[in-house]
């Protein structure tokens, strides 16, 4: 980690309105230039964690401190304003006084060339999410919190988006936190992998990956993650309600 952290969070406990414990003792400190991939089975609490990190959910025990001046967000749903076209949806997010980015170029980068004048109802889910990603990128974020950025994308498009996202930390020292499912992509992209598991969910395992790690090093991290948390490779697809047995650490 270089420089002061962009994000410091300690979620001591997060309960559902019913009182059920959802998250327990999750600590996350993210510095500039870091890419944190948050992995775990569906329903484990990744989205809940991201909402807390974004400051949208304040009903938890613990603290979140964001030092970032501009935080970009990508939700699982596109959350575009249906009464504005894509260009105006993107403009909406730009703070006053900040220069207007080249929206056409931005849409081109996320694989939505010429989409400026389309309305959300004219977009497929995948296109709408890419427009939403362009909105998050348009504010030149120094902290980017993304919920499943690669969902509903074909492999080529996912690769393109991954390359675009990887540029952010290198070029501007931005920090990224992403919830995702795909371990291979996480290993290829992230500087840290955090596995959430259990009920209530907590950090089952985390591992750092050097930014310039070669393929062999990344492959060994991948094997390591799978050994410690089998579901990270997709072998345990879904968890609802039942406690997840995390494979014991092996020497």
């Amino acid at each position: 980690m270089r420089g002061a952290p962009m994000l410091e969070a300690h979620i001591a406990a997060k309960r559902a309105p019913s009182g059920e414990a959802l998250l327990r003792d999750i600590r996350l400190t993210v510095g500039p230039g870091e890419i944190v991939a948050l992995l775990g089975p569906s329903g484990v609490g990744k989205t809940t964690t991201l909402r807390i990190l974004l400051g949208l959910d304040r009903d938890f025990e613990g603290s979140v401190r964001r030092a970032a001046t501009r935080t970009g967000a990508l939700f699982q749903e596109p959350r575009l304003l249906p009464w504005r076209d894509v260009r105006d949806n993107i403009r909406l997010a730009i703070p006053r006084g900040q220069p207007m980015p080249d929206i056409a170029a931005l849409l081109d980068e996320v694989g939505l060339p010429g989409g400026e004048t389309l309305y959300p109802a004219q977009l497929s889910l995948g296109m709408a999410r890419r427009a939403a990603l362009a909105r998050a990128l348009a504010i030149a974020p120094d902290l980017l919190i993304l919920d499943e950025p690669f969902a509903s994308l074909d492999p080529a498009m996912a690769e393109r988006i991954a390359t675009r996202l990887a540029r952010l930390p290198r070029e501007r020292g931005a920090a990224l936190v992403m919830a995702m499912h795909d371990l291979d992509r996480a290993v290829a992209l992230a500087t840290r992998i955090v596995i959430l598991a259990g009920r209530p969910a907590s950090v089952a395992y985390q591992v750092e990956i050097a930014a310039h790690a070669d393929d062999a090093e990344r492959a060994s991290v991948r094997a390591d993650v799978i050994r410690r948390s089998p579901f990270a490779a997709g072998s345990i697809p879904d968890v609802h309600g039942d406690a997840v047995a995390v494979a014991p650490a092996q020497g």
Partner: protein
Amino acid sequence: MGRAERRAATGTFYRLIGIAGFVALWFLAAHRAGPGPLLPSPLQVASFAWREIIDGDLPRQMGATLARVAIAFTLSMAAGTAIGYAMGRSRRINAFADPLLVLALNLPLLVIVILAYIWIGLNDLAAVLAVVVAKAPTVVVTIREGARALDPELDEMAAAFRLPPLRRLRAVILPQLASYLVASGRSGLSITWKIVLVVELLGRSDGVGFALNLYFQNFDVTGIIAYGLAFALVMLVVENLLLQPLERRANAWRAHA
């Protein structure tokens, strides 16, 4: 001619037939009623109205009423929207204000008008205030529904991107409330002017309501119909030239949906 234009033309055609049918029925009824003062013919009413317009009497009374309608409508929409929004957004405010709202909705209009005149005096402040108190609660009910239907996902998006409050209101909240605002505005305008007439009848010395009272005292049916129809016509024009274009503008984006 496109399909939409043709449909509009057909609509206009049937509208005209409807109006013509009404006037014809009126002629027939007036003919049946005979030459007495009970039901004058459309021609008699029209010529009376024309004389009143030339005298400047009808425009003067109409102006006084329209001014009250405009002020009362603006105030009741503003107050009703603010209160309705707050009640729709906050459970606490809703619990606090709901009993008062139910009371206001069920208070007879006459009681409000009479009390306003007694407490404030026979002046325009009392007149306008009475109309606002009578009208705003229905706006509150509609806007509260709209505020409850606001999309929480867009709220969160606005919060995540830290949109400044004014931009959030203009770009995120108002477009969602637009159809509720237009609905309460359209029903509101017709209710407001009817209330204004009653308020004028009870305690003002000008306005269409005052004129109607005068003609009632003299049993002058021609005057009553002339003033009543003239005013309804003006409100119809306001509705068509002001409120309907506003509604179309608010819903223009749906063409892309």
